[in-house]
């Protein structure tokens, strides 16, 4: 069968969220609402030192004076922040030493996601720090990493065990006053990951964290801090799924990366939070601040595959402070049904001979809106800075939208900036060609979309790329027939 635009569109709209289930685990949850006392309670609950409590309180005070931004190309009902519970932890004893101690229901959840710990443990070269409802419940491969002096733990643990590192770097790239949601995160972040790679060490495995929102009505405020000391290298993977929920869930994470001289950080994300149903009801609000600071001759590479969330507002950025530093951004953003995504990057060239590359692939289906928003800024001091940007959009059907907002500010006339953009549509002739070769329409769309996204998929670590391809298929296919 060949498909008309209309049929194709309908089909794409009828895709249900595959990971929509809910794990029933006893949790300890704070009453809804936010005030200074709640901030203090969170800090106390996590056994934080006084300086951290003060840091949070200052952030809270600053945040109260801030306003929610509305410049993004998205429409939504602002979440009521007083109607959210700011802490929820699985009610469990201390850290698990082996899988036997882990709640079987939790393991079942991971099994449903196809990322069971058993599998993960077997997957040589991948250490997993799983964040479930705000608190790390399992950590593997820690000892192997420790031999190299690598610290990979929850941010709460880092605050307790490595206060000197946390104190020095937290908020140094994304200050609490940076923006509304970063401010909120700084005040109430519940947990997240911390990673430190010592001087000259090449991290022998991909560091992987799976995030998951699990408790109805609890917003999640993850905080991630990755520090790559001089001449070190780390590849960090972050992947997420969430169960179906009727009410909107807020997610406002902050990720800070610091690449010291000649260090390299590769940060890959696969995001698949609940996007809402086909009517646009429910879904996660994803308002994230991700930013990396590059020192001399260092490199930060962001790769993201964004398929989930009802509203996404996310700009993983690089501040190229050091001379000869490199920033990269590779992105695939898929929107379907009523999803809205306003995503892109900022490349701030401060140092001389700095280089940046931006490859953005937007795929829109259903009634969704997909915007690329990017800033390339060349400061007056950044001699011989270079940027290359490429933004491609793929449209399916006639009801969706693709938008590109590239901002370029060059204050140094030695800068070389290139920008390319294309927009295309999946053609019925392409689908028929595939059908004629025995490939059904679902598979044909997946094939075309994967081809379109290939440049970015190729940047992902192998095992992640496979998962990402699967996700693209899940996000765009409907049940045929």
């Amino acid at each position: 069968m060949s498909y008309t635009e209309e049929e194709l569109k309908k089909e794409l709209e009828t895709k249900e969220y595959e990971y929509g289930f809910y794990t029933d685990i006893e949790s300890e949850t704070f009453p809804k609402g936010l005030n200074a006392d709640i901030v203090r309670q969170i800090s106390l609950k996590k056994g934080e030192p006084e300086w951290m409590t003060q840091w949070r309180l200052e952030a809270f005070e600053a945040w109260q004076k801030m306003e929610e931004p509305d410049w993004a190309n998205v429409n939504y009902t602002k979440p009521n922040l007083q109607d959210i519970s700011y802490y929820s932890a699985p009610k469990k004893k201390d850290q698990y030493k082996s899988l036997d101690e882990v709640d079987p229901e939790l393991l079942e959840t991971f099994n449903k996601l196809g990322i069971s710990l058993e599998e993960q443990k077997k997957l040589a070269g991948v250490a997993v720090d799983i964040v479930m409802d705000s608190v790390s419940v399992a950590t593997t491969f820690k000892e192997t990493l420790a031999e190299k002096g690598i610290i990979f733990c929850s941010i709460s643990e880092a605050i307790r065990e490595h206060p000197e590192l946390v104190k020095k770097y937290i908020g140094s790239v994304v200050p609490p006053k940076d923006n509304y949601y970063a401010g909120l995160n700084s005040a109430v972040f519940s947990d997240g990951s911390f990673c430190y790679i010592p001087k000259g060490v090449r991290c022998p495995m991909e560091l992987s964290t799976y995030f998951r929102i699990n408790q109805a009505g609890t917003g999640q405020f993850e905080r991630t801090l990755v520090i790559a000391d001089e001449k070190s290298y780390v590849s960090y993977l972050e992947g997420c799924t969430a169960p179906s929920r009727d009410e909107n869930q807020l997610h406002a994470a902050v990720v800070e990366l610091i690449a010291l001289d000649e260090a390299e950080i590769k940060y890959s994300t696969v995001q698949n939070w609940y996007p809402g149903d086909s009517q646009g009801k429910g879904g996660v609000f994803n308002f994230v601040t991700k930013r990396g600071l590059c020192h001399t001759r260092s490199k930060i590479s962001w790769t993201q595959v964004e398929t989930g969330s009802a509203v996404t507002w996310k700009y993983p950025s690089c501040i190229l402070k050091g001379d000869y530093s490199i920033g990269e951004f590779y992105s695939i953003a898929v929107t379907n049904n009523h999803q809205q995504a306003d995503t892109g990057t900022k490349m701030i060239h401060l140092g001389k001979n700095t280089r940046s590359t931006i490859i953005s692939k937007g795929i829109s289906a259903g009634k969704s809106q997909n915007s690329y928003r990017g800033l390339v800024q060349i400061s007056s001091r950044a001699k011989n800075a270079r940027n290359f940007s490429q933004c491609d959009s793929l449209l399916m059907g006639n009801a969706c939208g693709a938008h590109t907002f590239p901002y370029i500010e060059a204050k140094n006339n030695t800068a070389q900036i290139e920008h390319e953009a294309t927009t295309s549509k999946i053609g019925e002739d392409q689908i028929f060609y595939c059908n004629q070769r025995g490939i059904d329409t679902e598979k044909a769309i997946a094939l075309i979309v994967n081809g379109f996204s290939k440049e970015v998929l190729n940047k992902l670590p192998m095992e992640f790329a496979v998962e990402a391809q699967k996700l693209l298929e899940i996000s765009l296919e409907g049940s045929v027939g």
Partner: protein
Amino acid sequence: MLTIENLHAQVEGKPILKGIDLDIKPGEVHAIMGPNGSGKSTLSSVVAGNEDYEITEGKMLLKGQDLAELSAEERAHAGIFLSFQYPVEIPGVSVTNFIKTAINANRKAKGLEDYPAGELLKKIREKAKLLDIESKFLSRSLNEGFSGGEKKRNEIFQMAMLEPALAILDETDSGLDIDALKIVANGVNKLRNKDNAILVITHYQRLLDYIVPDFVHVLFDGKIVKSGTKELAFELEEKGYDWIKELA
């Protein structure tokens, strides 16, 4: 193999095919010739299951099975292959990846496991050699930036890989220089056997020098107005299509 009875088809309400009868047996090569606009490409699209065309009358049977009940991919699974006149580009999807996906989709439809990667690679190499295709070519994006000759060679490469029961070659000679034409025709000839059948659709007699048909049919204004052996093709070449119009 393929039986077509009194086939009528239209596109956007405009009748194109006005009563086609055709009977192709295993091991046979049939050629359909005709001037532009006579309905040649429509016939191939209709057999392959392109739903832009509406069948208003008549039927098509493949090995006795009514094609009307089958979608385009099901017809492919049943053994119909169409070498497109204008193969489409699929950026980012390599020739290898595409054929792998197609082969495994066909296997899945037959309840078979994926083709083992090692064997598939061996088969790809073997068939590529048959069509004088370099390994570098196999990693290029499907039809993107291909020359006319490369596109057609790739179509026949896919035919060689999929081993269809019935192959329809729609204007496979268009856009080919004589060397490319020989390679493509040679490839097709090596794929001929007593169990499969080939339907060659062409405007010119030239291709039929290399792919020699058992029967030639002349299509004009949606009907087959004359059938014969390969000599009919020479006659057409010599006299042009004008005298055919008088037959109609």
